[in-house]
């Protein structure tokens, strides 16, 4: 056994750090560190820089413009990005649809769609959930009825993250009502500028508007936009979800957040002592540190033998569960550290009006926003059900 990085992995780690230090625009890094909302343009700027370097599609094979990195290299890169204030490029095109097209798409779909994901011409969003179909995804009702060379789509999707920036959506739609619900689902690509598509924002608990509802009324979608075979979409849906779940663990972000916490605990004095010297806080931080170190290794253990960037079904569920628990616990610790200063909606105050470091001022909204981590991508209860099913059968 050997947990050391090899010398080539170590030099890759250096290369990643240097690259980010040199090329990541400082205004973007500052926004990321302050937990501020990024504009579409911010994402696209960083994406273009990565694409130019050939480092954008970490999980794709080389022939499609990916990196062909090993799992360890991917881990090194993700950690380097998270620790140095690089934004996380939204996963919908790169880490969800991309792998799906590579595995299930036609040659033409690959040739047409993959380059557009890389160069940012397409911003994809995910149309899985519906108001009545969340955990029970297979009960979805959005219908696609064949009409000549088109499908006609009617229905409603809910919770589409960052749909406001997107020009395309990949959707699960019902193409048959026969047999088991899973057997009548297809995976289709819909352009949001098609007549009959309408998007409305949903306001979240912290006041932000990052999710949307999408309505489809007699939307014509060419049959060529079907991925895989008609009524075989469920397999694709599940394949995509393992990619989504593996990524949600977000270990790099937790490492960054723990460091950020330590920095804050060193700055903040509360009731006569530094927070860093407060035994209650020190104990909580140390426990989380241990959990996180364990998860880092768990993640590597589970990913090291995979080739296409997603762990197996049970493994990705375990990673999602523990990863999100740790991320949420860190947000809780960070918010608590601010004491009464966490109360204001921070954007009401300018920096010199705040009693805390400006970076910390958004701790409470970010904590509330992070409650989503245990709900989306298949809620943590559903992950437990998946693992339990693997353990106990039925």
């Amino acid at each position: 056994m050997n947990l050391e990085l090899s010398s080539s992995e170590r030099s890759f780690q250096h290369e990643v750090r240097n690259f980010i230090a040199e090329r990541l625009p400082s205004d973007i890094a500052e926004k990321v560190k302050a937990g501020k909302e990024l504009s579409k343009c911010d994402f696209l700027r960083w994406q273009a820089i990565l694409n130019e370097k050939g480092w954008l599609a970490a999980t794709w094979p080389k022939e499609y413009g990916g990196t062909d990195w090993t799992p360890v290299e991917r881990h090194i890169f993700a950690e380097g990005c998270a620790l140095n204030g690089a934004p996380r490029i939204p996963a919908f095109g790169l880490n969800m649809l991309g792998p799906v097209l590579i595995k299930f798409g036609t040659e033409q779909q690959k040739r047409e769609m993959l380059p557009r994901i890389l160069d940012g011409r397409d911003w994809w969003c995910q149309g899985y959930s519906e108001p009545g179909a969340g955990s029970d995804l297979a009960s979805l009702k959005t219908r696609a009825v064949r009409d000549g060379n088109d499908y006609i789509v009617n229905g409603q999707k809910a919770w589409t993250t960052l749909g406001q920036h997107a020009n395309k959506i990949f959707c699960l739609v019902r193409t048959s009502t026969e047999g088991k619900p899973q057997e009548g689902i297809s995976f289709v690509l819909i352009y949001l500028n098609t007549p009959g598509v309408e998007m409305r924002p949903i306001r979240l608990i912290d006041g932000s508007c990052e999710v949307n509802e999408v309505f489809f009324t007699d939307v014509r979608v060419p049959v060529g936009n079907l991925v895989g075979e008609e009524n075989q979409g469920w397999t694709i849906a599940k394949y995509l979800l393992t990619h989504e779940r593996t990524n949600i663990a977000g270990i790099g972000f937790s490492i960054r957040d723990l460091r950020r916490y330590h920095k804050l605990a060193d700055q903040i004095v509360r009731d006569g002592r530094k927070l860093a010297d407060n035994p209650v806080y020190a104990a909580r931080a140390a426990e989380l540190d241990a959990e996180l170190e364990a998860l880092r290794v768990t993640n590597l253990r589970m990913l090291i033998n995979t080739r296409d960037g997603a762990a197996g079904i049970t493994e990705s569920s375990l990673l999602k569960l523990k990863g999100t628990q740790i991320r949420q616990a860190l947000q809780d610790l960070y918010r608590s550290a601010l004491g009464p200063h966490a109360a204001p909606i921070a954007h009401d105050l300018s920096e010199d009006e705040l009693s805390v470091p400006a970076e910390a001022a958004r701790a409470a909204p970010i904590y509330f926003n992070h409650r989503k981590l245990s709900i989306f991508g298949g809620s943590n209860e559903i992950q437990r059900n998946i693992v339990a099913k693997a353990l106990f059968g039925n």
Partner: protein
Amino acid sequence: MDFNYSEHHQILASSLRRYLADTYSIDDRGQLAYRAPYHSREIWAGLAKMGILGAFVGEQQGGFGGTAQDVLVIFEELGRALCAEPVLANLLCLRLLAVFPSSDLLEAVIAGETRMALAVCEPQVSCDLTCIETTARQVGRSWFLNGRKSAIYGAPGADHLLVVARADQGLGLFLLESPQIIEAAMIDGGGIAELVMDDLAVKLIAADCAREIEDALDIGRVALCAEAVGAMTRLIDLTVDYLKQREQFGRALASFQALQHRVVDMMVELEQCRSITIAAVASYGTSEQSRLVAMAKNLVGRMATKIAEESIQLHGGIGMTWEYPGSHYAKRLVMIDHQLGDQNDHLLRLIKLNKGGAQATAV
């Protein structure tokens, strides 16, 4: 032993509940609580007219209550309705004004004509009064303050502030009329403010009153615990209703044992919170006050956060939305922990008190 409310308290609770149900819907709250002045003058006048503010003060001082039980009964209802009116701020001030009846302010606050808030926290002080750094300087008969106060709950729109500052005589209390403050909305509704003092002229209320200030803060902590109990009760009800009504996999979510057990755990914790709050109420004014208030604030802080998180989780995506009332209850419950010392501050307070106790029994 009797855990029932007296007839008087039952009437107080039910009339307040009715008043809030009639005038303060969750939609009204959404309109009021996040925009300056972060509350409603009409509702405030209504609460005063009902005698809510008078209930915080004893009869000799011009009120008609003044027990910790009055506070419990009222704040539980405020919590249930998620009322973001600045009642806590005025409770704290009323308690202090009642001990130092130096002016006619007390009467005006009880009548709802004057609103006040207590400036005690500082950028580096959350609950330990021995760390207060704001200083009071006397020049002839005038007093001047220097320092910075933060997290002044309920200060936006208040007519005057009571400010805690260190004088030669000890920790003092000062009146600041028509203050200039930096105000903001709280993430969970209601207003908060910061105050910067640079030789600011104030009036002396009392020069040496650390004990009285601590007592006022302790009753404020009891109030927050009671508010949390009310809010948790309502939030658990909302969650139970939702689980009964929401179907996935062809059945009600309420039929999944994994979820049933989670809700049962929430209810167990709620009962625990109710009990420790009652115990804190009973201890108020006795030698056990500090310990039981610290216990209550610690336990309620922890469990209110847990119940808030669980309720969001059990609602799925809906629980994350601004539109859903439960999300505002959840926010309030988490943020209650940040007021007047949080679970960790009170844990340390408890450890200190217990150590004192252990040594005392050892000798």
